């Protein structure tokens, strides 16, 4: 069990790592901008005619911030879902939220909308899926993890079928964009602010309940006996996790693996105390996604890979390594 001091130390280190990842994202890319010029651009000292200033401020900074916010949101939502379902294999997409968002986004693209239109439609899709799963899982007033999980899986596969249908009927020139959206892509971010605000709000709601979440992870009845208002806490966690996922998916499409793997990595490294795990997962998820996106747009520059492919390629081997190491302990 971490003491408060150790928790602060871990968080400070992770915050430093996050800042380092953001700095790297600003400096690296198909056009190299020297660190001095990056600083100058951020401080507003750069010459307005310097192309480096525009690249850093208008292209790389919004994209890096969006990556950080989405990574943080997905990791936080994943950690919350794992507690809610008491299942270490749960991820933010397990309840069909990304499926609903996908249907919304692809419909918007089919209608020829762009930017904010796609974001709006995908958020509506995510909300619809979230309410549908919640409503169906609560059909008879009871709440079991299995019922919630099964409802989510069924809704997700239903959305998957609709996505496949849209991909088959969509005109060819739109399919590339649709596939990028489905794999998760930070190059089309319309607005960074909603995701950053969502991350701050989600953390502000989740952190005060962190010790209660520790108890919920051990079982609903024991948590209730120890004074936790379980039904209210479950509803809160469900909606915070679902809205965090919706905000991330709306901003950058369904980026996989961050929500599953980051909470796991953090748990293996520092234990399962939610008071430390939740903020640490948010920081680590943000940093990891910023790094992955920087790689995605620089390793085969000027070609950009979908960041979701990179997160999977980085996440899977690291996860398997840590799992193997954990088993030996």
């Amino acid at each position, binding site marked *: 069990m971490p003491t408060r001091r150790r928790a602060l130390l871990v968080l400070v280190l992770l915050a430093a790592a996050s800042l380092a990842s953001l700095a790297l994202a600003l400096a690296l890319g198909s056009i190299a901008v020297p660190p001095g010029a990056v600083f100058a651009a951020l401080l507003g000292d750069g010459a307005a005619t310097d192309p480096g200033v525009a690249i850093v401020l208008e292209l790389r900074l919004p994209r890096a911030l969006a990556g950080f916010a989405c990574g943080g949101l997905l990791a936080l939502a994943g950690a919350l879902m794992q507690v809610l379902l008491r299942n270490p294999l749960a991820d933010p997409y397990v309840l069909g939220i990304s499926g609903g968002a996908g249907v919304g986004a692809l419909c918007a693209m089919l209608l020829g909308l762009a930017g904010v239109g796609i974001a709006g439609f995908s958020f509506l899709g995510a909300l619809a899926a979230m309410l549908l799963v919640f409503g169906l899982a609560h059909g008879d007033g009871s709440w079991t993890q299995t019922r919630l999980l099964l409802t989510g899986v069924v809704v997700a596969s239903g959305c998957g079928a609709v996505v496949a249908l849209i991909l088959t009927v969509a005109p060819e020139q739109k399919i590339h964009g649709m596939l990028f959206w489905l794999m998760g892509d930070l190059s089309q971010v319309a607005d960074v602010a909603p995701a950053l605000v969502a991350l701050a709000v989600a953390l502000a709601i989740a952190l005060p309940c962190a010790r209660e979440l520790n*108890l919920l992870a051990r079982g609903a009845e024991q948590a209730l006996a120890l004074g936790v208002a379980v039904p209210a806490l479950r509803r809160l966690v469900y909606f915070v996790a679902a809205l965090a996922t919706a905000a991330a998916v709306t901003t950058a499409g369904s980026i996989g693996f961050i929500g599953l793997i980051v909470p796991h990595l953090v748990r293996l490294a520092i234990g399962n105390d939610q008071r430390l795990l939740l903020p640490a997962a948010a920081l680590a998820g943000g940093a990891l996604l910023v790094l992955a996106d920087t790689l995605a747009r620089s390793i085969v520059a000027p070609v950009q890979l979908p960041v979701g492919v990179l997160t999977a390629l980085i996440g899977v081997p690291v996860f398997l390594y840590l799992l193997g190491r954990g088993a030996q302990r």
Partner: protein
Amino acid sequence: MSDAILSTRALAVSIGPHKVCASLDLDLAPGERLAILGRNGAGKSTLLATLAGLRAADAGTLRLAGKTYAEHGLPTAARLRGWLGQERGDPFASTVLETAMVGRHPHLSRWSWESGADAEIARAAIAAMGLAGMETRDVQTLSGGERQRAAIAALLTQQPRLYLLDEPLAHLDLNHQIATLDLLTRRAQDDGSALAMVLHDPNFALRFCDRALLLFGAGEHLSGPAAAVIDAANLSRLYGHPLRRIEAPGGNHPIFVPE
């Protein structure tokens, strides 16, 4: 009785169509130990969960230290009564110390972390349950009996005034069964807490409890002083199998063995 820690009047409890008890009047004073006996499916766990305020009764009143659970509110109730359930499934890794420390939750405010004093209480409970030296072990690597003892350590760490224990002896070997019952008895004597526990062995009930509640199923029950209620006729009816009373040479209590 106004000084009773737990008090029920005309309490009716059922699970679906099955009645557990139709009209239970029960008073548990400080220091008293109650054994709940009955067959599988008679509703022992359901009754205990009801007494813990975890599920609603059909009718009647239930008071904890003079107030209903609703009047206490969840956090206050959690400082007054502790409940040990039967389920031992931890999906996430957790050390023995962390497992015991959850008992401190009701005593901490929202933003405070466990202090050194809280850790001392948890370590003492772990040592009392014979798990000293295993504080940093992951509970998922423990045996069933060790896990059970870690769960009881969490309950001891909670330091409630009323202990409600659902099969506290499950998975424990004989020496730990006796040690656990001795320890709980000492708690009741030392700090005036009360115990109610579901037991399967009437001999333990007779030896370690002052009072007994027999659940016959179909809503019938019998409660009273353990020595008066636990006899061969009642036990034979309770378990649907004849039991014989044997006077133990030199012992204070008779023992009951199945025919």
